[in-house]
């Protein structure tokens, strides 16, 4: 299997930071707020590998830093430290040493992101088709007919009614908005997709259909994905491997089944016990 992403020692600190920040925060001391300088250690020393076509689950309670990990990798927020290497067929990109234009190129051409809140991923002032067109135009496709066809195919694939291609996403239901977001993220057939709490806030039947869709896409396109969620059911269904985070640190990694059936860390044990 080919490695697609290698993350080493990723960290993000909000605030001035001080030498005692790292030892005064974390799961052992039960906080991510440094008592000495007031900085928030959102994530520290997060390392993982991701292989082609694999789904990696990132789970943890709210505030554990799981969203910060994908936001840093998708260049939404610059990290304070660490490195990430993206293997793009025969090329390697050291993500955090690229300039803004190169980062934007990767974002538009090789990455996809689905946010929990469709407001972040979609432009509500342009039609669903326009949203997908925007991403295709970013990747330099300049043929109107081809863009239109592609947008329709993607929306059909994500089960959005074709009669609503030219409607504004703000008139869509939450589940439909999420499917448009997935279609938009997939528009350029990215080899790497980030999913940040995609099913949170949706009702169970809609959740199930979106999870099915994600699995089908992974089977079809062999897209590697990082799935962030606090929902153990989602992790169990989607992810082959998972990491568990608490107060910005990785406390457990391993195969999903292993983590869910035989959790080692006390927090994971509580998490699994409370969910079942």
């Amino acid at each position, binding site marked *: 299997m080919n490695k697609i992403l290698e993350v080493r020692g990723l960290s993000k600190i909000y605030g001035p930071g001080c030498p005692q920040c790292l030892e005064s925060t974390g799961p052992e001391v039960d906080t991510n707020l440094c008592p000495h300088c007031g900085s928030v250690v959102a994530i520290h020393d997060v390392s993982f590998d991701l292989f082609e076509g694999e789904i990696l689950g990132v789970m943890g309670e709210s505030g554990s830093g799981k969203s910060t990990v994908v936001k840093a990798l998708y260049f939404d927020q610059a990290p304070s430290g660490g490195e990430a290497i993206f293997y793009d067929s025969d090329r390697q990109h050291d993500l955090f040493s690229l300039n803004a234009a190169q980062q934007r190129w990767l974002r538009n051409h090789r990455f996809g992101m689905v946010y929990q809140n469709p407001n972040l991923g979609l432009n509500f002032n342009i039609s669903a088709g*326009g949203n997908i067109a925007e991403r295709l135009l970013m990747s330099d496709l300049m043929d109107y007919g081809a863009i239109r066809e592609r947008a329709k195919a993607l929306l059909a694939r994500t089960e959005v009614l074709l009669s609503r291609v030219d409607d504004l996403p703000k008139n869509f239901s939450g589940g439909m908005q999420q499917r448009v977001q997935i279609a938009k993220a997939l528009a350029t057939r990215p080899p790497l997709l980030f999913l940040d709490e995609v099913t949170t806030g949706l009702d169970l039947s809609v959740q199930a259909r979106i999870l099915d869709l994600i699995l089908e896409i992974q089977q079809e396109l062999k897209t590697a994905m990082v799935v962030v969620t606090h929902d153990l059911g989602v992790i169990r269904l989607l992810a082959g491997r998972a990491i568990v985070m608490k107060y910005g640190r990785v406390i457990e990694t391993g195969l999903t089944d292993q983590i869910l059936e035989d959790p080692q860390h006390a927090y994971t044990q509580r998490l699994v016990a409370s969910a079942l």
Partner: protein
Amino acid sequence: MNAMTHTTNAYNFGFLDEYAKKEVRRAVLKAIAIPGYQVPYASREMPMGRGFGTGGLQLTLSLIGPNEVVKVIDQGSDDSVNAVNLRQFIEMTCPGVSTTTKTAECTLVQSRHRIPELALTASQIIVLQVPYPDPLVVVEPSEDKRKTMHGEADYSRLLVKLYEDIVKFDEITISHRYPTRINGHYVIDPSPIPRWDVPKLNDSAALVLFGAGREKKIYAVPPHTRAEPLAFSDVPFRVEDFRDAAGRRRACARCGCTDSFLDEFVADSGSKTWQCSDSDWCDEQLLRTEHPQGELA
């Protein structure tokens, strides 16, 4: 100051002081060096309201020399209020400068919303007055972000506007201020010229300068530079065709010209007539039909 010798009245030659002119000229040089880039400059207060062509006027007054022949037009016409007032202001503050209404004779044209029909030559400069210099303002309110987008040539959101237009109306409905890519990178707002005039920017022999007084920006399309209106590869850019219901090209009611940009006039009775928007062009055509070639001499 060398140019102080031109001073014949209470004001400096060209109204602006020499430092102000120098700054505008520096901005012009930078604008020419980076085709399509909006160069910020300290737009001076002029004795007229912002939005009445102060940007264009500052460019004109900074570029004008004692032997200049200036033409001022407003929507193609030399006789409309804006053009007449600006021309009188230039005559008043630039003693020795002559003005003309003939496109062929001028060395400097200041224009609002039109480029003359007669092709400009390498010895001429055209200055266009610009109300809104940034084409991205419709998709991004933050100037900071717009600067980044320009720097990275990130115009996908502008293209989405065109896409939405085609979806709704089957064609691009931008009638004026058509976003145009200069030299393969920066997209400019070419001021409110009609689509008809956009192809004239491409590979133009004359230097085209844009001045936005209120927005404090100067930009340029240098001579013989590529200017490509944004479009899709399968939905090309097209100019106004002026066809009537029967598909015939309308002609100017005054001179009969069928290859100029036409203005529509509605009479009190409700009937419509079409006439050349460029008044100098119309006069020339009329002269040519009254005195066919050869008779003039």
